[in-house]
C-alpha cells in the first residue's frame, strides 16, 4: 500500500528528499507534503552560501535522473576536482586531495606503495602529479570524464560547487512538478498513537496526516527529538569547532577545486561558483582570527542522533547528524540517507526491520565521516578516538589503508588525506622490492606524460562552463 509522506524543513535537504522520492519511489509513495518552515537553510547541518560536494553529487543526480547541467545552471554552479589543503603541516606548499584515481598499480602493488618505495630511496614524489584531476586543477582546466575506460581522463572524478538557495529552489521546483504539496507554516505539535506519529498540527492549526514523517529541520531536529527513544550523541569534545561564518564576493575566475586552509582555531574554505567566490570560516567560538564582520556567526555542536529512524520518523541531513564539514561530506551524507531510505522504503508504518537496517547502515557511514573529520585535528594534540588511532597506526606502520563498512573515502582518498596531513608510512609493500627501481620510475614517468598530454586537450574551466552550463543562459531564456 503506498505511503503518505510528510517532510518537514526548508532548504536543500527536504526538497532533495521530496524530489528523489517522487522520482524513484512512484510505486511506494501516495501523497507527499512538505511543511516548509522557513529561516536559514541549515537542513544539511551547517549553513553555507555555497555547498561544496564530493564526487557523490554528480552520481546521485544521475541515479535519480536529474539533468546535472540544469542543476548547475540553476545554482550558478561550478566544478571541483579536489581539495587543496594549505597550512595543515609545516610544508608551505598546499597538498592536494584529488578526486578519482591517483596513478596506476603495477601488478598487485598499489600506486602509493610504489611511490613510497621511491620516497624511501630519497626521491621526492608528489602523489598529485599522477592524478588527472590534480593536473587539471593545477592548470585551471576542466572537462567531464568520458565513459570510455580506454582514456586516462576516465580515471578522474569531480564534485560540484552549488549556491545553496539556487539549488534548493531547483529541487523544490522539481518536486512540485512531480506532485509535492507545499504548506508554509511552523511545526506546532505532533499527534501520536502507540508511539507512532499520526499527524502534525501546524502553528496555524492545519492538520497534516501521514504514514511516514521525514525530519529535515536541521540541527534543531524538531520532529525526531519528540520521539520517545531519541538520543543525541555529542562529538564536540573531539570536533571542537562550533561557529560558522560565510562571506561571498563577486569574482569571475572560477577555481576548479575547493581550497581548505587550517588556522590556529579552525579552518577557512574558499569555493568558486559562477561570478562569485565564497569564504567560509569554521572555528571555535570567540577565536575568529583577524577578521571582523557584522553578521553573527552560526553556532553548532558536532554530533548525531543515535537512532535517525525511530518508529515512523526518519531524520535526514542536519537533523540526523552535524559533522564539521572540513571534508565536504555534508551533501554526501544527505544524499546517501535519501538513497538508503528509498532502498528500504517500507510497506507500512510498522517498519521495525527497515528502521533497524537503516540505522545500522547510517551509523556505519557516520562513523566513517566522523573519522575523516577527526583526522584533520590530529595535529592539534586532540586525543584521537581508538578507531581513527588504529587507522593512523596501521597506515604509519606499513602503508595499508584500513577500510570499514560504510566508507565514504576509497583508498586513494585516504592516502591523499594522510599525505596532506603529514602522516607517512614507515615501510612499504614488501612486494615492491621485487621490482627493479628503474621499472617503477619508468612506470611513473609514463603515467605522467600520458596525463599531461590528455590534460592539455581539456578547455579552461570557464570555457567549459560557458559551453554547457552557463547560468546566464537561464536569464536569457527568461
Amino acid at each position: 500500500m503506498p505511503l503518505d509522506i510528510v517532510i518537514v524543513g526548508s532548504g536543500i535537504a527536504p526538497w532533495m528528499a521530496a524530489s528523489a522520492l517522487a522520482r524513484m519511489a512512484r510505486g511506494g509513495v501516495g501523497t507527499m507534503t512538505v511543511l516548509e518552515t522557513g529561516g536559514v537553510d541549515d537542513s544539511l547541518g551547517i549553513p553555507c552560501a555555497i555547498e561544496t560536494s564530493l564526487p557523490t553529487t554528480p552520481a546521485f543526480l544521475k541515479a535519480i535522473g536529474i539533468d546535472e547541467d540544469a542543476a548547475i545552471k540553476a545554482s550558478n554552479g561550478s566544478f571541483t576536482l579536489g581539495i587543496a589543503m594549505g597550512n595543515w603541516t609545516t610544508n608551505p606548499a598546499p597538498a592536494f586531495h584529488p578526486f578519482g584515481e591517483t596513478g596506476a598499480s603495477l601488478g598487485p602493488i598499489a600506486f602509493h606503495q610504489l611511490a613510497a618505495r621511491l620516497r624511501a630511496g630519497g626521491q621526492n614524489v608528489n602523489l598529485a602529479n599522477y592524478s588527472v584531476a590534480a593536473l587539471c586543477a593545477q592548470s585551471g582546466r576542466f572537462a567531464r570524464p568520458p565513459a570510455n575506460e580506454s582514456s586516462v581522463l576516465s580515471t578522474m572524478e569531480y564534485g560540484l560547487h552549488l549556491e545553496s538557495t539556487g539549488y534548493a529552489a531547483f529541487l523544490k521546483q522539481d518536486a512540485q512538478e512531480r506532485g509535492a504539496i507545499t504548506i508554509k507554516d511552523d511545526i506546532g505539535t505532533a499527534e501520536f498513537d502507540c508511539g507512532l506519529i499520526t499527524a502534525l498540527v501546524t502553528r496555524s492549526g492545519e492538520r497534516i496526516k501521514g504514514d511516514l514523517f521525514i525530519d529535515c529541520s536541521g540541527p534543531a531536529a524538531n520532529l525526531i527529538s519528540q520521539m520517545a527513544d531519541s538520543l543525541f550523541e555529542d562529538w564536540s569534545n573531539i570536533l571542537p569547532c562550533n561557529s560558522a561564518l560565510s562571506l561571498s564576493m563577486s569574482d569571475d575566475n572560477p577555481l576548479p577545486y575547493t581550497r581548505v586552509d587550517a588556522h590556529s582555531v579552525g579552518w577557512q574554505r574558499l569555493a568558486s561558483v559562477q561570478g562569485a567566490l565564497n569564504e567560509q570560516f569554521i572555528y571555535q567560538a570567540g577565536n575568529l582570527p583577524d577578521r571582523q564582520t557584522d553578521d553573527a556567526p552560526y553556532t553548532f555542536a558536532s554530533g548525531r542522533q543515535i537512532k535517525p529512524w525511530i518508529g515512523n520518523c526518519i531524520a535526514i541531513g542536519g537533523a540526523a547528524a552535524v559533522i564539521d564539514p572540513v571534508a565536504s561530506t555534508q551533501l554526501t551524507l544527505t544524499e546517501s540517507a535519501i538513497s538508503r531510505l528509498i532502498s528500504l522504503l517500507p510497506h507500512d508504518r510498522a517498519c521495525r526491520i527497515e528502521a533497524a537496517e537503516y540505522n545500522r547502515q547510517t551509523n556505519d557511514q557516520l562513523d566513517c565521516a566522523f573519522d575523516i573529520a577527526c583526522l584533520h585535528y590530529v595535529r592539534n594534540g586532540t586525543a584521537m578516538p581508538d578507531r581513527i588511532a588504529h587507522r593512523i597506526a596501521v597506515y604509519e606502520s606499513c602503508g595499508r589503508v584500513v577500510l570499514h563498512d560504510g566508507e565514504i573515502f576509497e583508498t586513494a582518498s585516504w592516502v591523499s588525506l594522510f599525505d596532506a596531513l603529514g602522516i607517512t608510512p614507515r615501510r612499504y609493500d614488501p612486494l615492491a622490492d621485487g621490482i627493479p627501481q628503474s621499472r617503477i620510475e619508468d612506470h611513473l614517468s609514463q603515467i605522467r606524460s600520458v596525463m599531461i598530454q590528455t590534460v592539455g586537450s581539456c578547455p579552461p574551466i570557464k570555457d567549459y562552463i560557458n559551453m554547457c552550463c552557463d547560468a546566464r543562459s537561464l536569464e536569457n531564456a527568461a
Partner: protein
Amino acid sequence: MSADPIRNIVVVGGGTAGWMAAAALSRIQGNGISKIILVESDEIGIVGVGEATIPPIKTFNAMLGIDENDFIASTQGSFKLGIEFVGWSRDGEKYLHPFGAYGSDIEGIKFHQLWMKMRKAGMPHPIANFNLSTVAAQHNRFTKPDANRASVLSQLDNAYHFDAELYAKFLRKYAEHRGVTRQEGKITRVDQNAENGFINAVVLESGDVIEGDLFIDCSGFIGLLIEQTLKTGYEDWCHYLPCDRALAVPSERTEPLLPYTRSTAQSAGWQWRIPLQHRTGNGYVYCSDFISEDEASASLLAGLDGKALSDPRPLKFTTGRRKKAWNKNVIALGLASGFMEPLESTSIHLVQAGISKLLALFPDKSFNAHERDEYNRLTAIQWAQIRDFLILHYKLNNRIGQPFWERCAAMDIPESLQRKLDLFGGNGRLFRYEDELFSDASWTAVMMGQGLMPNAYDPLADTVDSAQVAHMLGRMAEVFDKTARQMPMHAEYIAQNCQGTLM
C-alpha cells in the same frame, strides 16, 4: 625497505595451505633479504581428498602467474560452475548455487526484484534460467568465460575441482623453483623467547634448529605453534554448525563428467561429490550425536555412484576459529586457523585470503601490534560472514521428521544472519557488506533454494515498464539457453585443453 626487515620466514607444514603460503610468499624474496623455509615431515599425511574451490582462486593463480591448462592437467582437475544442493530443503528437491550473477539490474533495480515482479505476472521462467553458469551446468557443458563485457560469455563464472595432494605438489615445484627451501623433518621442540614468548626456532628430530623471525603455522588441526605453543584459544561454533566428523572416500569416475560439486543431504549431515579427471572425491560430513561411524560409513558407500577405491578415511573436527589467527610472530593458515565444513568450498579461499592480508600487512621485526590487530579484525569479520552463510543452509531446511535437521531448523541464529533473513523475507532486500565474499546472487540462490521467497517484491520495481522487462527477460532466457547448448561438453573441453598428466 625497512630498518629491520624480516629475514627468515618459516612455514610449518606442507599441505595445501603450507605450499600455497610458500608459493605466494616466495615473491617477497625479491627484496634480496628475506628467505623462506618450509618444514614438512614425510611421516605426517595431509588431509584432503578432492578439493572444490570458488572463483577467487583464479585471482590467486593469476598472482602467481600460473597457466590454467597446465594447472588443471597437473592436478587432474576439472571445472566448477557451482554447487548442486540435493534434498537440502526437503527430499526430492534440488537447486544449484551457481557462480556469476542472475540477469542484470535495470535502472538501479536488482534483477531478482524484476524477476519476482514478472513471475507474479505469470512469466514461466524460474530464476535459474537467468544464470548462464546454471544453464551450462544443466547441460554438463563448459567453456571459458569471456572478460569482454559485450560478450554473453562474460556472464559465466567458474572455479575448479582438483586433487589436493597434486595441487600441493604442483605448488611445491613452483615454490622450490623460486628459491623456497624445503626441509624434511619432524618438529620435536619449539623454542620461545623467554621475555615475550615469541617463537625463536623449531627444533627437528634430527637436532637441526630452524630459526625464524616469522612463522606461518600450517600444521593442521593441532596448531603446533598457534595452539600447542602459544595457547591462543579457540572459539567453538558447534552450536550453530554441529557436524563434527567426516568420512572421505574416492570412487571411480563416472560419465558424464559433471561441471559442478554436489552436496546431498543425509540423515545426520550431508555428502559431498567432487568430480575429478581420474576419480570422484566423496565424503560424508555428519554430527556424531545422531549417527555412528559405522552407520555413516555404510550410508556413504551406499550413496556412491561409482566403485569405491579405498576404505572411508575418518576425520574429526570442531567447527570454529582460532581466537587470533595472528599471535605474536605466528600466523596460522588452513586448519591451524580454524575449521568450517566444506559446504561452500571456502577452505582454500580462507588460506588465500589469509595470505593476501598478510602480504598487505606484512610486518617487520618490530611486529607492530596494530598490523596484527588489523589482520585479526579482518579475519574475524570474514570468518563470521562465511559462518552465517553456512548456517543459512541448515536453518532453512524443511526435512521434517529427521531429528538432526529439526534441531538445525529450531536453533537460534546470529543476529547478523537473522537481519538478512528478515530483510530478504520481507521485500527481497539484500545488502552486501564491504568485501563480503558471497554476492547477492549467492544469497538469492540459497535463500530461494531453501524455500525462502520474499513476501512481496520491492515497490521500486513498479517504476519500470513491465512490457519492456518481460520482453528483455524472455530474450535473455533464450540467448542463455542457446549459448549454453553451443558450449563443448565439460569432458570434451578438458580432453582438448587440459587432459591430466602424471607428475
